[in-house]
């Protein structure tokens, strides 16, 4: 798993590259928090174009980040999920708190 981020205009883009499961969850959690704390932005887009696998452990990680950013009134959006990730998001109702908004930037 690799977590890359870039601020573009008022938006923090974070790209998750790799596989998000129980093994990579803690690393992903810590590095998402790090990226979100450092950057000052009005909104966050988590770009899943390079996420090759995700199971329900990923939902726990994402909801945890949502709760942290909600306190700061910073909305999080999901971009470019795979078909499989999309099914898990719909099944769990994740889009009701993190709506889908496709788009991306070039990451460092």
């Amino acid at each position, binding site marked *: 798993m690799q977590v890359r981020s870039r601020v573009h205009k008022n938006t923090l883009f974070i790209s998750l590259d790799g596989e998000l499961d*129980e093994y990579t969850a803690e690393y992903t959690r810590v590095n998402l928090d790090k990226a979100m704390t450092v950057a000052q932005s009005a909104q966050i887009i988590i770009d899943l174009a390079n996420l090759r696998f995700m199971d*329900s452990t990923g939902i726990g990680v994402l909801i945890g980040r949502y709760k942290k950013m909600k306190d700061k009134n910073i909305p999080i959006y999901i971009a470019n999920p795979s078909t499989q990730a999309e099914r*898990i998001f719909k099944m769990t109702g994740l889009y009701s708190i993190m709506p889908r908004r496709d788009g991306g930037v070039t990451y460092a």
Partner: protein
Amino acid sequence: MPNQSKGAKTMKETKREIMNSMRLELDAVSSNESFARTAVAAFAGQLDPTVDQINDLKTAISEAVTNCVVHSSTKSVLIEAKLWRESKKQGISVTVTDFGIGIANIDKALEPFYTTKPDQERSGMGFTVMQSFMDSLAVCNGVDCGTVVEMTKVFGTNRGA
């Protein structure tokens, strides 16, 4: 403690011709999850499933192994898979077995969003994802003697028939 079991009992093994089988026992550590789901997916590849079917299978295996690693206190996980065919279809049956503490309440465990570890950012959606991504799911369980999750995925027409 009597054994509990829950889920669709639709297995018709007697009618099914087993074409191939595998057994894989591995340490119950999260670093093995990727290996476990990839190994089962590669085995299933012999039946020429679609990419979506393979991804469904990988996700379900990952959920089952996560349960063993996170909840069961088992030292090892046993994965057994069989490729089968019957008159008009073929598919894979997989059991994921642990030797841990068992599930205290299966009905609760199968409920969406139910988790025994609410303080750990867990979604409680593992069994729901397995049920949704596979064609059948059954859970057999005895407190203090482990849990067996049995799942089936149908891949479609039996091309050899």
